């Protein structure tokens, strides 16, 4: 089932660092909605959650499954090859390599040529490499990065680098895309562009997105489903409307001011909410 393969389920997830619970008995299942968000103050356990999903952090207790298949016990690159891609809050790019090279890195999991054959560069390896470069070219086009394809990443502005990072995750053709603060440090125009990009990609591909983001305008505009964490515990889970009116969430995170100003924002009309994000930033 295509839909099933995108469904992420977390049960009783607990991660303890020397007695401190980074995550404490967190359970949730993301339904087949397309864009979900995890929010919470700093130290709420958002990054730990991402690390458990990608296999970088082994939980103390609990399970993580994707499409019904347990992710625990798998090595991170195997999880990645199962269709889970992520971006990093602090850019994790190769500054001295080109945009294309950086993005190509996400594509090697789709290479079938063996390592030795790849090294010897036989005709099959060459054909395959050409195909991968074409695929990368397509994504770069979609991201508006095509003109910068052969530029070194270190010469590019921050906002563009963020897009390069996103493109690297997209070429993996993910089933589940984890975005870690994709909007951090961007100006409002860039935020709008990136939101559009994510929406367009989700429209065209069979993919679920789970994002951590601090910008509430972006969250409310993009996410159809929100999980709220606070001090390692899940305090709320629901649609933006439900979450926004949850008294626990208001107390822990959102604050009364936010509730009043955003009250009349439309929830599911995505184009409209993007529009709104744009206006709110200006």
């Amino acid at each position, binding site marked *: 089932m295509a839909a099933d393969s995108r469904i992420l389920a977390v049960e009783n997830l607990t991660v303890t660092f020397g007695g401190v619970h980074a995550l404490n008995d967190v359970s949730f299942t993301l339904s087949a909605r397309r864009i979900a968000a995890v929010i919470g103050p700093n130290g709420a356990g958002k990054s730990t959650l991402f690390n458990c999903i990608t296999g970088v952090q082994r939980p103390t207790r609990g399970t993580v499954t994707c499409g019904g298949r347990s992710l625990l016990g798998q090595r*991170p*690159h195997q999880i990645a090859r199962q269709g889970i*891609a992520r971006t990093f809050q602090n850019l*994790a790019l190769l500054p001295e390599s080109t945009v294309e090279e950086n993005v190509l890195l996400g594509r090697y999991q789709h*290479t079938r040529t063996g390592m030795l054959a790849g090294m010897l560069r036989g005709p099959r390896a060459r054909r395959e490499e050409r195909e991968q470069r074409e695929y990368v070219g397509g994504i770069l086009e979609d991201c508006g990065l095509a003109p910068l394809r052969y530029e070194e990443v270190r010469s590019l502005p921050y906002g563009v680098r963020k897009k390069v990072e996103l493109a690297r995750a997209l070429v993996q053709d993910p089933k589940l895309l984890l975005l870690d603060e994709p909007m951090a440090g961007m100006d409002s125009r860039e935020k709008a562009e990136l939101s559009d990009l994510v929406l367009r990609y989700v429209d065209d591909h069979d993919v679920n997105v789970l994002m951590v983001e601090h910008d509430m305008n972006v969250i409310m505009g993009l996410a159809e489903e929100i999980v709220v964490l606070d001090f390692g515990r899940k305090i709320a889970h629901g649609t933006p409307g439900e979450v926004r009116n949850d008294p626990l969430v208001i107390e822990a995170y959102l604050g009364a001011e936010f509730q009043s100003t955003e009250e009349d924002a439309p929830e599911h009309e995505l184009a409209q909410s993007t529009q709104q994000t744009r206006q709110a930033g200006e």
Partner: protein
Amino acid sequence: MASFIQDIVSGIATGSIYGLVAIGLVLVYKSTGVFNFAHGEFVALSAFLLTSLTAALGAGWLAIVAVLVIVPILGVLVHYLIIRPMMGKPLLATVMTTIGLGLALRALILILYGPDPRQFDGPIPSNAVDIGSVRIAVSDLLTIGIAVVCLLLFGLFFTRSSLGLQMRAVANQMEASILSGVNASRIYAVAFGVGALLAAVAGVLLASTSVVSVQLSNLALIAFPAVIIGGISSVQGAIVGGILVGVLEKLAEAYASQQAAIAVVYAVLLAVLLLRPQGILGTREAMRA
């Protein structure tokens, strides 16, 4: 003047070999974070293997090819059998493992071959040519040529091939690379294999121009300063460092003494560490520890 030029050429030739060894060290360090203290033993092992393969196969050329195939496979095996199980353990433990591996390889060489130095009569000629008043050994020119070709090929591999890109990625952005689906363990294996290949090339060159003895392992001791002087994070730096050390050594030897040569090399090392801790071509951000 003629003797000065001769000493410079000798220094560049010797330094090219240091450079090959130093790149192997830097490559493995950069991609795995492990400083492989058994690298010198790989050089010595390659040289000894060359002597027995020459005896077995009858032809020096054939034996050279065989060594260049076998030793990288050994390097990959070392990764899977010894280094990989150490992954995730404290770095010091892994480094100690490589020291232990070095001692074990040294013992293995002594058990298999005994303490006597051996000779390899390879295809590299041992005569000299006169260029004007300067007499230059053909083997030095060949050594420099082979080292340059190796360095160019290695540079192309590292910057142009997909494996090279993955290697750079794992070295610089490990988590992101793995989460992009790169199999880091396999990349580490390739790094050990390529490192061993460079050690094998150095072993073959040394067997042809020097004496095959377990002392060749000590080469790593002089390659370490080359690595540090050039910059531990820089492949080009390793080459520059290697050649610089080779030339310094020969000039110090010629104008002072061989003992002074070692002192000069380490004095330069100290100066570099004080003035430019990241090495001549190293970058500050890439310094790990």
